[in-house]
């Protein structure tokens, strides 16, 4: 078996003096969708930020596409083909939809699907109708679509997707799940953090369960759905 696209081992992260992650290990294979599961505050968001280089972190292994990431700043990691979609969306509110996409634009990358605004408007038809609109005047669902589209403009081969279904109406959640499946079909690998078991089971191949900054369980999505003990211990609220 060839090496995984993303290999994380012994990942530690801090916010100031607070030690948040303590030895997270996970892999994401080529074309695989992995769900990072856990309760509120378990460290899902921090794991994604740590991979992206947005928090202070250390790792025994943090390798993407045979490149070590630990010493790189966020913009270099992004240029290697890691796309980060934050949970709080962080649309550039003063910029129009098209300008938001422009900020994300990077040159095409061999081995990763390459995107143009037109292709993205086909994927998210809602956005096409508001290309000149500013981010302040968009609904939550539209903003979530735009965040994803903006990151795709960088032509990533791995997508770090933070809580894609959070706070969205059921209809939009379904559209989101469709989008993730289509991205997987295009050949993208995805690591997503999720609290919603139903969303994760709709899109993910495998799951990693974390709690209080540690990895507790890892297996296929099907195994997680049948293992009541794990779900009760780490996911039930």
């Amino acid at each position: 078996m060839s090496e995984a696209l993303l290999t994380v081992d012994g990942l530690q992260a801090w916010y100031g003096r607070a030690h948040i992650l303590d030895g997270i290990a996970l892999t994401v294979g080529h074309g695989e969708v992995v769900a990072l599961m856990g309760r509120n505050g378990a460290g899902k968001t921090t794991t994604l930020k740590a991979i992206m280089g947005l928090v202070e972190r250390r790792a025994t292994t943090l390798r993407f596409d045979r490149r070590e990431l630990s010493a790189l700043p966020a913009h270099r990691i992004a240029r290697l083909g890691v796309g980060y979609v934050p949970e709080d969306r962080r649309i550039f509110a003063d910029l129009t939809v098209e300008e938001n996409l422009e900020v994300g634009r990077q040159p095409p990358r061999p081995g990763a699907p390459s995107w143009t605004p037109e292709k993205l408007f086909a994927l998210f038809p809602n956005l096409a109708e508001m290309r000149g609109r500013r981010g302040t005047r968009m609904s939550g669902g539209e903003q979530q679509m735009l965040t994803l589209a903006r990151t795709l403009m960088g032509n990533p081969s791995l997508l770090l997707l933070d809580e894609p279904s959070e706070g969205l109406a059921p209809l939009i959640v379904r559209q989101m799940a469709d989008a993730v499946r289509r991205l997987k079909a295009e050949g993208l690998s995805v690591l997503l953090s999720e609290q919603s078991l139903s969303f994760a089971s709709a899109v993910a191949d495998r799951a990693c369960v974390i709690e209080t900054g540690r990895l507790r369980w890892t297996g296929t999505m099907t195994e997680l759905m049948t293992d009541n003990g794990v779900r009760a211990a780490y996911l039930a609220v």
Partner: protein
Amino acid sequence: MSFLLVQALSGLATAATLFLVSSGLTIVFGVTRIVNFAHGSFYMVGAYAGWSLIERFGGTPAGFWGSVAAAALAMGVLGAAMEIGLLRRLYRSPELFQLLGTFGVVLVVQDLTAWAWGPEDLLGRRAPGLKGSIDILDQPFPLYDLVLIGLGPLVLGLLWLLFNRTRWGTLVRAATQDREMTSALGVDPARLFTGVLFLGCALAGLGGALQVPRESVTLQMDMAIVVEAFVVVVVGGMGSLTGAFLASLLIGQLQAFGILVFPQITLVLVFLFMAVVLVLRPHGLLGRPDEAPPTAPATVTVPLLAGRHAGTWALALLPVLAAAPLVAGDYALILLTEVVILALFAASLHLLIGLGGLVSFGHAAWFGLGAYGSALLVRHLDAPMPLALAGAPVLAGLGALVAGWFCVRRSGLYFAMLTLAFAQIVWSIVFQWYAVTGGDNGILGVWPPGWAAGKATYYWLTLALCGGALWLLYRAAFAPFGYALRAGRDSGLRAESVGIDVRRFQWMAFVLAGAAAGLAGGLYAFAKGSVFPTLLAVPQSVDALVMVLMGGIQTITGPLAGAVVFHLLESEVMSLTDWWRLVLGLIIVALVLVFPKGIVGFLSGIRSRT
């Protein structure tokens, strides 16, 4: 009628220059969130460089405009170098460090400019082809000024195109809103910021070089323009280009017509205008609430190191200090007296910064008001020294009461700008009200009466008064008043929600700090025997900030240590060289970069590590 029109036109020409400089300042602020004190230095050096180039090549129109462009580009390169060498290390620092660090650059540039071009004012040649004037309703108006008037909107238009129609501009606007997200999308923020500094400083340099045919090039240009540009940027809304344009127009007209109506107080008018705008529209004319700079508390990682030790040390130190006249000579006593006065001055500022998280950039106003209060009482009312000394904190406290009402309405950088504005108001009143204050000549002959004339007696008097005031400040820091102040600093919202009227406590602190600084000023006036407007000027405020910073912000004894070290440096090192600005500037930059916790913080850091 035609006279008014010409006056309005000359106001527009002033506005054009003001806009060129302020647009650079506001662009740099919008992206880096740093208020660049050194912005005026790029304007000044741009003018000097422009002067040299124009002298050499400015005989033809092509040579003249080429020289102006070359000077602007050179300033852009210098600005980029400053970003890489200094600003880049300050992005995460509290605003105090950013303001001080860039002020250090101001001092260094002043001395380097004087060294390169000499201290004399330079008169440049006029622009070829634009030397004459044109009659507008029978009034002559310089052609060159007409060109300047056109240049303002042209530059605004070009900047608009740059920010709205190019990829670079889109990235800059994105980084302005969310730096981290922009870098997560693969944009190198460092390169973007270097580019922004290049642009901002090139605009300042352009403004400077364009002044060469209009007025003489002097070493005072930097502070004059940067303070005006601050006003423009704050009035327009920090980070807003159109706001800066609008504010430049308004202030240009205010100056053009203000000089007709109130020739004595044009400076005051400008700052009053700013204070009024900020009270009515807290974020400036076109600024938005979310553009308000974050108020980074001055790195509060350790709670204020308390108490008992500091108290014991002070008690132990007091007899030693009191015994000093037994061994010290006159010179040493004079030095010690000044150190004690400055310690109170620094400690009063520390009350605002360390406890209140309020970075005042105009604390010299209260020191100077105290000094002038005493001197005026002696000069005009023949008051005896005790009365004059009592008047110092009262006058300063009253001044702070009025200014504080405005200032505590805003926090963070806006607070710093407002305090700076009020200090400039007080300074310009003292500077321009010749009949009462003597203007530039100051007031001389403010000596203590016979019974206190001896160096030792005056030293003891100073020690007693300052010691008492320091003890009061110290008590205040650990009284409920101090706790409320610190609660407001660390989280204004939470403090409000437990019932603390944060603004009122800050106002009280402002008055208390002002009165204490005023007492120090009064004592200083009698120690020196004279007062001058420099006591209220920006450099004096910066001195106080440097003392606080040297000592360390989060230590109660820090300002005292800072005052000792600073005054010894000033009198024993800097007085020995003509290049004291260079030395002081480098010290400030080094402090900001290497010892951000100050001397006391640094020492206790070493102690706690071992």
